[in-house]
């Protein structure tokens, strides 16, 4: 129990997490906290480990050392320090506490928009079909797709698919939502509708950890920005501080300069 009392007020507490793929060290002693209601954005050059970090948080990826806690509970492993994986059931239950939205949507193509949302509600949350259907309709309404409940993913545009992806994740009422470059597979004119949904969720107090290359959005929507480089956290701070052109962090300055050069 002492661990729980020690835990900071952070909802997500990542401590000294390291991970290697074979000889390649992808995460080097990463630490990061996200408080309830906070929106934290991770930026950084390609290959810096952003995706891997997010995937470790819901244990789609295992990590080699360190600890990741959500609400004081160790993710993935039975206890911090040991590398004993939780049981399949436990892992599934833990994963239901985090929502994830994927870059490539990953909607279930054999299920309708509503069916995609209802699957977790019925199988994991144990809701009845009619309860789940109601919840699905509610969340589809929230993302502006009430009229598409019975459409198959193949009948939706990319932006609509991604909004269903978001609805599917939040309908599970997760403690934290993980979003990995959720607009980068979209045509530019569809990005706005998806970001608008994310923004409204943030306004409702949803805790989020997201990776994005949309700097303007990161600046406006984030409580804090984390800059990752070479598998480590290189800088953390409020958007204004991190995105300031005159930052003293050399790597961050180079990243931002290059980023601006290519995006504006």
């Amino acid at each position, binding site marked *: 129990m002492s661990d729980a009392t020690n835990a900071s007020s952070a909802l997500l507490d990542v401590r000294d997490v390291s991970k290697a793929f074979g000889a390649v060290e992808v995460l080097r002693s990463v630490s990061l906290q996200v408080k309830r209601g906070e929106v934290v954005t991770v930026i950084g050059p390609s290959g810096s480990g952003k995706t891997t970090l997010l995937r470790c948080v*819901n244990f789609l990826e295992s990590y080699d050392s360190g600890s990741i806690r959500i609400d004081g509970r160790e993710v993935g492993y039975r206890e911090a320090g040991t590398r004993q994986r939780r049981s399949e059931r436990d892992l599934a239950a833990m*994963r239901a506490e*985090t*929502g994830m939205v*994927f870059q490539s949507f990953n909607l279930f193509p054999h299920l309708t928009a509503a069916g995609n949302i209802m699957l977790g509600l019925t199988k994991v949350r144990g809701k009845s079909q009619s309860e789940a259907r109601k919840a699905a309709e509610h969340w589809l309404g929230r993302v502006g797709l009430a009229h598409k409940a019975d459409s198959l993913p193949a009948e939706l545009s990319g932006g609509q698919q991604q909004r269903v992806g978001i609805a599917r994740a939040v309908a599970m009422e997760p403690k934290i939502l993980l979003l990995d470059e959720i607009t980068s597979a979209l045509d530019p004119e569809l990005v706005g509708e998806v970001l608008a949904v994310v923004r409204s969720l943030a306004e409702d107090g949803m805790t989020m950890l997201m990776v994005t290359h949309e700097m303007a959005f990161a600046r406006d929507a984030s409580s804090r920005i984390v800059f990752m480089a070479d598998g480590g956290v290189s800088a953390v701070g409020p958007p204004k501080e991190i995105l300031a052109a005159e930052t003293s962090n050399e790597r961050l300055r180079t990243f931002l300069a290059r980023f601006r050069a290519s995006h504006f």
Partner: protein
Amino acid sequence: MLSQILYALPFLAQGFAVTLWVSLLVVVLSLIVGVLLGVGLVYGPAPLRWVVRIFSDTIRGIPILVLMFFVYYGLPATGLHLPSFWAAVLALTLFKTAQVVEYVRGAVASIPKGQSEAAMAIGLTFSQRLTSVIFPQAFRRFLPPWINGVTDAVKGSALVSLLGITDLMQAINQVIGRTYEAMPLYILGALIYFAVNYALSLASRRLERRFAFIRE
């Protein structure tokens, strides 16, 4: 000539019934065992995967005829005495099972990894992921090659005639033995096999379209 063939029709019909019965048994048994082994090949522990891999590659690497003789003549040496009918069904089933294993593997492997991950992310357990996400999608990839393969089972069943089982093939040979009307009877036999298999392949095309619920 015509009267002789007409006279033989009931006998041929009996043989035809045996052909259908053998085919049905083989198709159903191989489907059950093949799906189980196929899932084992994809998700099972390493030793099981090796066993299934070796089983499938070996069976698919030898002629069905050799497999059938091996089972029919070889089994008694191991102390197991099966009536020739069941030895034949066993051999054909082994062969078909290896095919089904590959169809299952191919179908499951064609489902993108993101589907599993999305299912994990909403907290589905392994068995829930299989039954709610992977299998429904894999089913549709499995169906076309599998149904196409049903005609292989019907064609393969003609080999049981070599073990003295009176299927359609054997019935035709026996009628020829009495009537010496070889050509008309072989052509009649070919047309019967053709009719069955062609009907099956038409049905399979229709089913395929029915299950194409995902536009790509």
